Every structure is written in structure tokens, then in C-alpha cells.
């Protein structure tokens, strides 16, 4: 508290400092021990049926006639998988371990089930108490294996979605250097518009993925950690960058705008984080047969994300960074798409995907703040001059237009 009077020197008399520090913890431990010993909630437990919450996180089809269920117990207590019903028929399964799953434990079930390529399958777990937990596979298809074709396809997608856009953005760099200062701010405002759209997009993806997060993993808390973590983390990273460059006096105080290159890197990092989450989602959707990776979709991603490239170079329009910086920034922004797609395709976890998508959303949010401050440094009205506002709105519209092309 700021109004607490600071002691001039640590007090020497009285109980030892370590004792004072540990006392609350010891009391807490005592309370916990008492609670488990006395078990005051026992009457409630006896009166109510157990609360069970199993989630089938992922269904995979490793080969014809075989189905694999990846189950996690997100409930407050252990639950026992007694039977499995597939398409309204009991079906035998093998489980890799004990059918009783402790809280937050995972299990994999394998069934010899004659699943049908391209059709819907409804899967239902029956616990020992007769409760049921369902999962629907909209389109069954052979799960991708880590083979050359798959790695290449997603490598290519990553190149198009992440790396190439930055290279295209780089080509705008000479153009940006030749234009008037106020037009540079027009393009920075356009960047804010692009990112604002992306932030909404990112939150939508996050919420979508979080619908499958088991209750025990606290989707809302996970999103908060991701978003706030990214905002705070990137801000600290920005301040670190300013300290290194030893820049202007505002930067030394830690609350002024970051120099252009730092902002460009921050944008690259945030887009990289976002693309990691997006890659996870794309890989998973592909392996679940929920999207077809047509060339139209890949081109759509490329166009959509080229705008991300522009966003990266706009802050360095009035500087002359070394070429290697463009290579680094391209890598930081683009490569995570490839990594995410590989990971998502082979082992998708809604919990991890939610966390990374939230991280991406928070990162973009922080970058919007940084770019806005960069604009305001030269223009007190910031985004709200007629020209800058037009840029912002145009950014939103460009994103909307290119987003129409990635509707899977």
C-alpha cells in the first residue's frame, strides 16, 4: 500500500522474521488438515450423487476400423468409465490403464469400430453411476500421420500464412520510406484497424476452443492468464527493448512509446503467438475432417495475413533497419503457424489451444496499445485525425474482405 509508512529499518526484536513469514502458512496447513480430518461436508456428499464430468477431448481414427478416444476427467472427483456407446450401440473398448480416472487424469480408449469415412459418429461414455458424456464427430476421416506429405502440406501452409506475408510487407518498405510523414501515420492507423479486427477474431477463436475445455481446467481463468500474461509480458519486453536502445527520455521512464523497431518486433512476436494458436486450430480442424485444405483456403490465408506483414513494417517506415531484422521478424511471425499446425494435427488439446489463442489475443491487444502510442507521439490527436480514422476503418474493412476468403 502506498500510504503505509515505511519502516526506516527492519525491526530486530520480537519473533524471528522467518516465523512471521511462515505463521499464516502453518495456520492454513492446520485448517486444511482439520478439514480433511473432520470431513464436515460428509453429510452433503451422502445426500447428493457424485458430480462427474468427463470430456472426450479428441477422437482419432488411426486406421480403418479403429477409433481412439482421448478422455480427460475435468470433474471434482474420480469417475469410472464402465461402458462406451457408439452410434446407439454398446461397443467394447480397451483402456490404457485403470478405468477409474482421478481428477484431471487422462485415458485413451481404443475401439474396433467400423467407422464410415465421411459420416457422422456419436460417441457416448457411460460411467459406473449411469451418467453419460457425449462427443460427436461430424465427419470421420483417417487421422493424419506424421508423414512427409502432411509435414510438407502444413509447412507450405505455414509459409503462406506466416512467412510470405512478411516478405510481401517488406516489399512495401521502400514505398513507405518515400511517402510523407502524415501518410506513414495513415498506414500505422491502418495497422491498428487490421489488428483490431484480428483481436476480435482471436477472441472468437479462443472462445470457440474453450467450449471443449474440461471444467476442471477453468477455461475462463486460462483465458485471463493468457491475455493478461501476454499484455504484461510484451509490455515488459518493450520496456526492456527501450532500455537496451537507450533511447529517448520517455523510454527511460518506461511509459513512453517504444521505438519503431521494438514495436515492429513486438508485432512480429504477437502475430507469431496468434499464428501458433491459429495453427493449432487449423491442424486440428484438418485432422478432424472439419475443413478441407483446398488451394482457395491457403490463398485466402495468404491474402488475409499479408496485411499482418504490413502491420509489422509500418512502425519502421521512418528507420533503416538491417535486412536480417526482416528475416527474423518473418520467422518469428510465420514459423509458429507451421509448428502449431503440426502439433494440432497430431495431438490436439483444447486446453492448450485455448491458452495459446488467448495468449495471441492478448499479444495483439498490447501491440494495438503500442502502435497507438507511437502515433500519438507525433500526433496529439492520435488515431482520431480524419486521415488516421480513415486508415483505421479501411484496415477493418480490408481484414473483413480478406476474411471472407478463409471461411472454411
Amino acid at each position, binding site marked *: 500500500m502506498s500510504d503505509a509508512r515505511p519502516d526506516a529499518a527492519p525491526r530486530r526484536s520480537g519473533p524471528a522474521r522467518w516465523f512471521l513469514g511462515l505463521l499464516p502458512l502453518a495456520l492454513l496447513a492446520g485448517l486444511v488438515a482439520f478439514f480433511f480430518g473432520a470431513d464436515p461436508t460428509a453429510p452433503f456428499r451422502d445426500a447428493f450423487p457424485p458430480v462427474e464430468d468427463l470430456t472426450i477431448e479428441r477422437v482419432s481414427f488411426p486406421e480403418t476400423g479403429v477409433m481412439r478416444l482421448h478422455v480427460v476427467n475435468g470433474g471434482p472427483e474420480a469417475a469410472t468409465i464402465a*461402458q462406451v456407446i457408439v452410434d446407439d450401440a*454398446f461397443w467394447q473398448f480397451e483402456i490404457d490403464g485403470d478405468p477409474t480416472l482421478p481428477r484431471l487424469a487422462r485415458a485413451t480408449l481404443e475401439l474396433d469400430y467400423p467407422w464410415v469415412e465421411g459420416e457422422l459418429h456419436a460417441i457416448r461414455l457411460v460411467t459406473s453411476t449411469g451418467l453419460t458424456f457425449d462427443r460427436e464427430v461430424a465427419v470421420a476421416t483417417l487421422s493424419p500421420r506424421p508423414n512427409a506429405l502432411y509435414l510438407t502440406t502444413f509447412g507450405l501452409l505455414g509459409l503462406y500464412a506466416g512467412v510470405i506475408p512478411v516478405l510481401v510487407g517488406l516489399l512495401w518498405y521502400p514505398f513507405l520510406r518515400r511517402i510523407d510523414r502524415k501518410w506513414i501515420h495513415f498506414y500505422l492507423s491502418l495497422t491498428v484497424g487490421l489488428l483490431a479486427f484480428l483481436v476480435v477474431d482471436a477472441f472468437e477463436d479462443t472462445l470457440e476452443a474453450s467450449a471443449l475445455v474440461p471444467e476442471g481446467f477453468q477455461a475462463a481463468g486460462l483465458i485471463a492468464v493468457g491475455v493478461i500474461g501476454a499484455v504484461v509480458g510484451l509490455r515488459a519486453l518493450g520496456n526492456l527493448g527501450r532500455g537496451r536502445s537507450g533511447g529517448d527520455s520517455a523510454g527511460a521512464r518506461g511509459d513512453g512509446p517504444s521505438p519503431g523497431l521494438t514495436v515492429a518486433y513486438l508485432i512480429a512476436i504477437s502475430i507469431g503467438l496468434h499464428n501458433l494458436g491459429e495453427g493449432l486450430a487449423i491442424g486440428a480442424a484438418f485432422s478432424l475432417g472439419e475443413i478441407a485444405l483446398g488451394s482457395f483456403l491457403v490463398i485466402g490465408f495468404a491474402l488475409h495475413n499479408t496485411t499482418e506483414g504490413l502491420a509489422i513494417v509500418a512502425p519502421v517506415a521512418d528507420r533503416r533497419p538491417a535486412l536480417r531484422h526482416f528475416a527474423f521478424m518473418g520467422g518469428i511471425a510465420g514459423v509458429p503457424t507451421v509448428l502449431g499446425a503440426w502439433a494440432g494435427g497430431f495431438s490436439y488439446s483444447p486446453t492448450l489451444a485455448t491458452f495459446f489463442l488467448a495468449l495471441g489475443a492478448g499479444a495483439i491487444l498490447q501491440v494495438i496499445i503500442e502502435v497507438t502510442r507511437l502515433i500519438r507521439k507525433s500526433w496529439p490527436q492520435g488515431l482520431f485525425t480524419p486521415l488516421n480514422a480513415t486508415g483505421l476503418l479501411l484496415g477493418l474493412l480490408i481484414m473483413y474482405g480478406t476474411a471472407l476468403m478463409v471461411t472454411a
Partner: protein
Amino acid sequence: MRPERLSRRDWLKLGAAGVAGVSGATVLDLASRGGAREALAASGAMPRAPGVDGAAAGPHAGHQDAMGIVGLPGPDGAFDPGAFLTDFDYGEVTTRADGRVVRRWRMVALDREIEIAPGVFFPAWTYNGQVPGPTLRCTEGDILQVEFTNAGSHPHTIHFHGTHPPEMDGFEPIVEPGQRFTYEFEAKPFGLHLYHCHTMPLKRHIHKGLYGAFIVDPPEGREPAREMVMVMNAFDSNLDGDNEVYAVNTSAFYYHHHPVRVGVNDLCRIYLVNTTEFDLINSFHLHAGMFKVFRTGTRADQYELTDTIMLCQGERHVLEFRLEHPGMHMFHAHQSEFAELGWMGFFEAVDRLAAGEGVPVGPAPRDV
């Protein structure tokens, strides 16, 4: 006997002839995948469900083996579906001064958790701790006394189908927990009836397990046969108003894993009662044979010959048949969904059953 397995070449020929011009590629694709699976099976990479020509294949092979429950259905404490099938409760028999036969039963309503499939438990309301309740059997004209004690947690009754005075009908009075009521009436008409709780909300009191078969034999009796009672029931284990587990006599797939043994050409008689809730109808289908249906069992001289019969909720029929060939005869609901959710079983017809083996011949000698 097992189905013949097509070679890959046969398969391709079939594809070329039958699907030519439609999608040859699909057939080729299928064939190659089939081949992949074959190779896997041969390599031992697939531990379960041997292929059609696998050494361990039983009467049902391939994915047929993988269908069904994990674990073996067995007796559940107070209730053994194997014994229940042929268990007819004739009550305590006394003879009144006027020569009328009096039968007395004690029925107790109890809350009990029952096992409806291996490892799946259901909080049931029961008569005498079992679902279905005991099969009560008597002869037309007997005086019946059913002393009903409610030791459960909710009010219950026993409502009998058949003809009797309304005050003995089990609609009223409601028997509160800790109370007792004795139903007394004359058994008529002969036929296959049922009893169930008639406390509101009716649907819950029935689906939780308060029902059973009630057989009134004709005065002249029925021809001796291997007699069985099958109560078609189902359980809404997650309480969503829809059944998850189906069976005859409660335990899913019980007679699938423990086939019912009868002799070839022996007269078999099933007392079949439908107590399924939520689903409007249920049905019985016999494989590799036909049966006579005596509707409600109330006429001995009229029947229909079929292999599939549909029953509404509360409907019941007496079925009679002889299996002409030895081997496994499947029986199940002809609603495929019910069948695969547990209502499926086998009769195993054997040429010669040793004395005391298989389903006993009845009516039991203790019947007078």
C-alpha cells in the same frame, strides 16, 4: 459355420462388375484398405476382434465380436437373471374351508442400487430387492392375497392387471413408507398379465423398476413346455427421459453371454411382458424359427404364426415355438437400436439335453 471370406481378387472382380462406371476408384481404395487391415491382423498388431477367418472367431465374428459390453454380465447380489428366467413364484398355498385355493405372497418395496450392465449401477426402486419383481403365478379362480409392505423412501402401490374390484386395483390407497396393505382378489381371467406401481408420477415409479409378470394359468393348465419369463425393460441411467440400457430381465446382453439352452424340437414357451418406459413400443424377434403368438395369453385356441411381434407399453403375449435345428438362435428386439443397447440374446438348441439340464419343463409340479 462361418461366412465364406472373399479373396481380394473376388472383391476386385465384384467391384469391377457391380460398380463399373460409378466409382472404380472407391472400390480399389476400399480393397486396398481391407488389405491393409488384413495385413495388420496377420501381423498381430490388432489384439482384439479376430477377422472372420480368425482362429478365435465364435458364432459371431469380426466387428460382431467388438460389439457389446466390456465385462461379463453376471448375477447382481440379490438378482440372478439366469435364475429369474425360469423362476415362477406360486406363493404360500392353503385351502380355504370352501375348497378354494388361497395363495399368499409377501411383497416389500425397497430402494436398491442394481447393476444393469457390467459396472453400470442404477438407483432402482424394487419389489423384494429385484427388478423385475418376482413372477407371480396362479390358476384362474384362486384367491390371491398379496401383503404389500412399503420399506422404500417414497409412497408406492401394486396395481395388478386383470379383473378385480376397484378397491383392490392398486390405484388407491397409496401405501406410504412404513405402511402395509393387503390386496385380495380372485385370479381371473387366465392369461399373461403384469403388475406395477401406480403412484404418481407414474412414469418415474415404473421406470425405476417397480413392475413384474403376473401369470394366471387356465384351469385345465397348459401343455408342458420349457417355460421362461422375459420382461422387456430399459433404464434411463442419466435421467434425461431417454433409455440408455435395454434388456430382457434387466441385465444388458445377459443371455447373449449366457445362452438359454433348450432341446431341439422341444416345446418352448415364453411369457413375454413389455414394461419399457419412454419408448412407445418394444418387440421380440426370433432367428431361424417361427413362433405362435397367443395375444395376452387369454385364448388357447387362437394364435398367429410369426417371427417378429410388436408390444406397446404394458402389452404382453405368450409365445410358443420349437427350434428345429441345433445351434445358436439369436433373439432380440427388432428395433436395432434396442438390440445393440443390450436387448439381445441366444437360444442354444441342442439335440439331447440331459435330465435337469437347460430350461426346466413346466408348469412346475408344485402347481395344483
